């Protein structure tokens, strides 16, 4: 079920009606509607057969924190009864061990399911024990990466005593299965999302028009940009040969940067909008990443919730672990800066290795993760050198020009990374990278595209995507400057708004038709 479809609209309409109708009688039971809607959505979009995995994940992450809490209580009781300080310490150490064992078992169960379903087959294939990466016929359950990460964050937070664990298993299931996040995130935190799901809302308080605007904005990104470009990108990178001109590669990667952003952030806009119609605000996942001033900054603005998850549950724990501190202490003999940053750099490389693997088990994803991790680590290690260079060259780091330079530089660095993300063969990635610099050959650009099966009309129709990109750019620029664009648009008079909406809808209608139905050149078939 596409988010932009009558079936989703009907699904939303029925769920919203039920939600606010129940709210009239009892706010305290409104959440039941959300749970029913989420489970129904999962069965409608995914396959009900895979629901069991989500239920298992929810069961584990519901039960473990309750057990941990019980153990915490027992620990306190025993400590209170202990005769002296040494005994208290011993009690605590014993219970800490047990608590850690429970946590580890629960983590193993959650990640074990994810790893088995997502990586086991690929792994067998890579070592030659499976006929294909999909030969076991394992079906990857819808949203498993997202709900697993979300549920694990709940588990770890509860372990750390951030909140009282949820006793009602169905309420917990709602947190794990909340339908707008199941397709592609964001990865929410219980402390933010949980109360919103459970507290109940009244239709009056919902910013309907803002939500609809955002839904449309997301649809525009997804249909007019991402879906329009994906075919051409595919044609370019599924035909990589030794003599591929660098100009074609660069074009393909640039298209990919637009497509990837349009697809992911557009989809997120749509689900955020859907969620907010229920009065539930999910975590933001994109903060105009292409305006970042450094790669590290980029990863705080792109897939924000995954970055935050990695930061809190991988980066910090790893960077402040005992071996890393020892490493830092040893390195600080070589220089204070090195001592401080080395553990962070190591943690960072680890994080991106995991992020790479999160995308897939194939080698090119690992390379892509390592590239990001290493660039950020190097930038940090070399930060004093950059500062000195800036000072020596009298660069005004506060100036607009410098900021623009940083944004452009980051954009290039990010795009270099996309080579490893999008080109599915690691050797091809390197080849494309080489040709970008040694064989740009712009005179072969057009000919090569035609040979790869890109049609003239495909290039011509990219004008629609260009218009959409320009629109997204203008909106993003305004948002960067702190303008509330939705508020502005909603402030226009209603005729202007009607015309504006017509234009946006028109763009979506045309591009949706072109991408879904133009196969085989039936553009103007005159039926």
């Amino acid at each position, binding site marked *: 079920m596409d988010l932009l479809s009558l079936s989703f609209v009907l699904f939303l309409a029925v769920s919203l009606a039920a939600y606010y109708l129940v709210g009239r009688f009892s706010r305290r039971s409104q959440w039941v509607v959300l749970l029913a809607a989420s489970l129904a959505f999962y069965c409608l979009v995914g396959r009900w057969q895979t629901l069991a995995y989500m239920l298992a994940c929810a069961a584990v992450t519901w039960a473990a924190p309750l057990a941990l809490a019980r153990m915490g209580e027992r620990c306190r009781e025993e400590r209170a009864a202990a005769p002296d300080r040494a005994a208290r310490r011993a009690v605590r150490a014993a219970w800490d061990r047990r608590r850690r064992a429970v946590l580890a078992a629960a983590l193993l169960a959650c990640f074990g399911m994810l790893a088995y379903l997502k990586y086991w087959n690929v792994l067998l294939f890579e070592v030659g024990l499976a006929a294909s990466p999909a030969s076991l016929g394992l079906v990857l359950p819808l949203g498993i990466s997202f709900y697993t990460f979300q549920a694990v964050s709940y588990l770890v937070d509860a372990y750390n005593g951030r909140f009282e664990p949820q006793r009602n298993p169905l309420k917990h299931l709602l947190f794990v299965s909340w339908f707008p996040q199941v397709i592609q995130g964001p990865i929410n935190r219980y402390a933010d999302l949980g109360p919103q799901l459970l507290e109940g809302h009244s239709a009056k308080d919902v910013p309907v028009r803002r939500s609809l605007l955002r839904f449309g904005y997301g649809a525009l990104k997804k249909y007019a940009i991402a879906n329009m470009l994906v075919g051409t990108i595919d044609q370019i990178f599924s035909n990589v040969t030794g003599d591929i001109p660098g100009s074609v590669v660069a074009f393909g990667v640039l298209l990919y940067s637009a497509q990837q952003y349009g697809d992911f952030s557009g989809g997120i806009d749509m689900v955020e909008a859907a969620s907010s119609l229920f009065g539930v605000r999910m975590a933001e996942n994109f903060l105009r990443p292409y305006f970042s001033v450094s790669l*590290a900054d980029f990863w*705080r603005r792109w897939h924000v919730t995954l970055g935050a998850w990695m930061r*809190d549950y991988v980066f910090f724990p790893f960077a*402040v672990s005992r071996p890393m*501190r020892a490493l830092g202490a040893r390195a600080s003999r070589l220089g204070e800066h090195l001592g*401080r940053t080395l553990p962070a750099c190591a943690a960072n490389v680890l994080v991106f290795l995991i992020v790479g693997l999160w995308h897939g088990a194939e080698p090119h994803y690992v390379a892509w993760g390592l590239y990001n991790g290493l660039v950020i680590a190097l930038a940090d290690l070399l930060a004093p050198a950059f500062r000195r260079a800036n000072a020596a060259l009298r660069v005004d780091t506060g100036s607009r020009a410098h900021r623009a330079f940083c944004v452009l530089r980051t954009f290039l660095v990010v795009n270099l990374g996309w080579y490893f993300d999008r080109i599915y063969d690691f050797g091809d990635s390197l080849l494309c990278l080489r040709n970008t610099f040694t064989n740009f050959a712009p005179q072969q650009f057009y000919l090569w595209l035609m040979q790869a099966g890109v049609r003239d009309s495909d290039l011509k129709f990219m004008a629609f995507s260009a218009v959409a990109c320009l629109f997204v750019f203008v909106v993003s620029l305004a948002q960067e400057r702190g303008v509330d664009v939705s508020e502005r648009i909603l402030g226009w008079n209603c005729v202007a708004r009607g015309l504006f909406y017509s234009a946006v809808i028109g763009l979506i209608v045309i591009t949706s038709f072109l991408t879904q139905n133009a196969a085989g050149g039936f553009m103007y078939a005159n039926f």
Partner: protein
Amino acid sequence: MDDDLTLDHMIELLEDVKGNVDYENCTTLVDDRVLDSFDILSIISSINDELDVSVPAKDIVPDNFNSAQAMLEMVKRLVDEEG
């Protein structure tokens, strides 16, 4: 570690890690991304080196690092817990 750790000490320590920040008044150091995760790790390692307090991963949450005062309170609490 002595008990008379003051806010001034804390701010001094922070300024060593990253200058040009209004530590006395800002209460959204993390929320407004004044400090990034690298800065926070640097702060943690400074706290470790200079105050001999180790900050466990579970305490690395925005609330504990949003202001100099919050960091001070966290450090004091950690000292108490260790005792």
